[in-house]
């Protein structure tokens, strides 16, 4: 039997958005089940050492750490919140006119003999966050090439530095906290390479780029990172990208080139930099698979919501990165609204005002640092695109040209790109864009299907068999 009562709000994801939703729903008197895949709440932003390794300097790795501690303590001490840690929501079952059933596997990640549970929510808040988007380049599959978030996660969650001499590259202000964390765990940062040039950045942020941010904690946070970089004499180069990594069994050097405004490398501007690690992030992709399985309509790759954070499915709300990449402050504001309305209350006016401010911030972020199509010119035919199935850009382009097919699905089936164990989470968007460019001006017939995945997290075959019995 699925668990739940008439007033149960189920929240999937214990990041800033899910935590804010939980507390807001509790303030409106609902019982809450908060399900988080990790072994503590905090999400990507407040990722920290586990309790068993707690250190006195944890707060130096974070912004708003006191706020996190207060929110966390309100959640873990509240008997009306059932906090399920190590709870991996692997699917949801659609039902007419009601929120879906929520299927969870509880236990160690990828372990065996985990406990299966199913919840029947009166309202559901999906707050599963985002993962990074890293554009492929020759050599990006060499060990020592990481996403910027990996460097961040290993520093905050393990106190491990990904290298001793590290270059940080990609696009957006997220590169800055990564530098800060790398310095704290003892790495030297060789530089930050931002793909957007000053024209893109200043047009995006507007005439007075910091005016918007100044009013907020975010402005203070970003200014702190910039001061730290200046103090450590870390060069910040704009309008440039890492276009190749070289090394035997591990990155030894990277090639950085200047870019045109559409992000095509300018021949003759290449410079080689010696590093033992490079961390690359060009933006984020919302983790929408559960929302899609629940039947929520999308707007490009984000989940469509109304002003109360409702999705198009009755009783299903969403908050945080799923509605558009906006960072922690937007996640907190949206979470608070979603939780309050999911519990039958009105949207808190202060949260509505904060959401407006940070949506604007998010819009400018995208204009200032959004990916431009010229990146495909640094992806030569030998560049590996799908890291699971080892498919190169040349194989993708040749298959599109030789078969004359414009179907994304059929081209993926032929090449196996995006069909490996990560289900295209890492390469899906790049595969789609490279194929779209290769098939010509008419484009792909079934564009945008990359985010459709039957399982949100992997299950073992034996587990699938037992859940069948339990749910039945």
């Amino acid at each position, binding site marked *: 039997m699925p668990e739940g009562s008439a007033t149960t709000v189920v929240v999937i994801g214990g990041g800033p958005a899910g935590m804010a939703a939980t507390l807001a729903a509790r303030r409106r008197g609902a019982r809450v089940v908060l399900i988080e895949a990790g072994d503590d709440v905090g999400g990507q932003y407040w990722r920290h050492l586990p309790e068993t390794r707690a250190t006195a300097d944890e707060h130096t790795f974070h912004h708003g750490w006191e706020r996190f501690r207060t929110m966390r303590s309100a959640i873990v001490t509240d008997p009306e919140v059932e906090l399920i840690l190590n709870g991996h929501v692997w699917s949801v079952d659609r039902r007419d006119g009601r929120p879906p059933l929520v299927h969870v596997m509880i236990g160690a*990640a990828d*372990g065996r003999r985990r406990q299966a549970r199913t919840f029947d929510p009166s309202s559901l808040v999906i707050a599963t966050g985002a993962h990074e988007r890293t554009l492929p380049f020759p050599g990006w599959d060499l060990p020592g*090439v990481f996403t910027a*978030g990996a460097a961040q996660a*290993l520093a905050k969650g393990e106190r*491990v530095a990904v290298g001793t001499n590290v270059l940080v590259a990609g696009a957006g202000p997220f590169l800055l906290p990564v530098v800060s964390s790398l310095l704290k765990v003892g790495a030297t940062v060789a530089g930050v390479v931002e793909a957007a040039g000053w024209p893109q950045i200043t047009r995006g942020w507007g005439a007075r780029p910091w005016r918007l941010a100044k009013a907020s904690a975010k402005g203070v946070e970003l200014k702190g990172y910039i001061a730290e970089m200046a103090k450590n004499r870390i060069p910040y180069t704009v309008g440039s990208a890492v276009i190749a990594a070289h090394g035997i069994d591990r990155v030894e050097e990277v090639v950085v080139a200047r870019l045109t405004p559409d992000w095509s490398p300018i021949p003759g501007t290449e410079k080689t930099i010696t590093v033992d690690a490079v961390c690359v992030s060009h933006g984020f992709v919302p983790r929408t698979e559960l929302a899609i399985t629940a039947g929520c309509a999308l707007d490009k790759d984000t989940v469509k919501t109304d002003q109360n954070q409702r999705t198009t499915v009755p009783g299903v709300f969403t908050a945080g990165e799923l509605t558009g990449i906006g960072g922690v402050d937007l996640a907190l504001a949206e979470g608070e609204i979603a939780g309050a309305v999911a519990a039958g209350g009105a949207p808190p006016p202060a949260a509505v005002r904060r959401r407006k401010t940070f949506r604007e911030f998010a819009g400018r972020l995208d204009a200032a640092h959004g990916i431009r199509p010229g990146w495909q010119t640094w992806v030569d035919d030998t560049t590996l695109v799908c890291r699971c199935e080892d498919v190169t850009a040349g194989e993708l382009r040749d298959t599109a040209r030789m078969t004359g097919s414009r179907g994304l699905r059929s081209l993926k089936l032929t090449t196996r790109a995006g069909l490996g164990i990560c289900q295209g989470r890492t390469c899906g968007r790049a595969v789609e864009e490279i194929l779209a460019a290769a098939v010509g001006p008419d484009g792909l017939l079934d564009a945008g299907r990359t985010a459709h995945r039957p399982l949100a997290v992997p299950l073992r075959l034996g587990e699938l068999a037992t859940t069948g019995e339990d749910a039945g």
Partner: protein
Amino acid sequence: MSIHVNVAGEQVEAQVGQTVAGVLMSGGRVSWRTSRSGQPRGVFCGIGVCFDCLVVVNDLRDVRACQRRVVDGDRIEFQEDDHA
């Protein structure tokens, strides 16, 4: 608190709360898996999304090293995916 795990046949000291990836990288490794075409792989995304970091833990294959916390006595082995 210190515990011991076995990494590819070798006893290694680890801390409670470290992930398998944390233990391997603290020990100076950057790669441990071999991809289909024989390329070395280690951590890439660090948050359980890319599956580059897979290891065998106590005979169970396809465990994400960046997600699995070590337990005293764990036996960690490296896997090759060259079954193309």
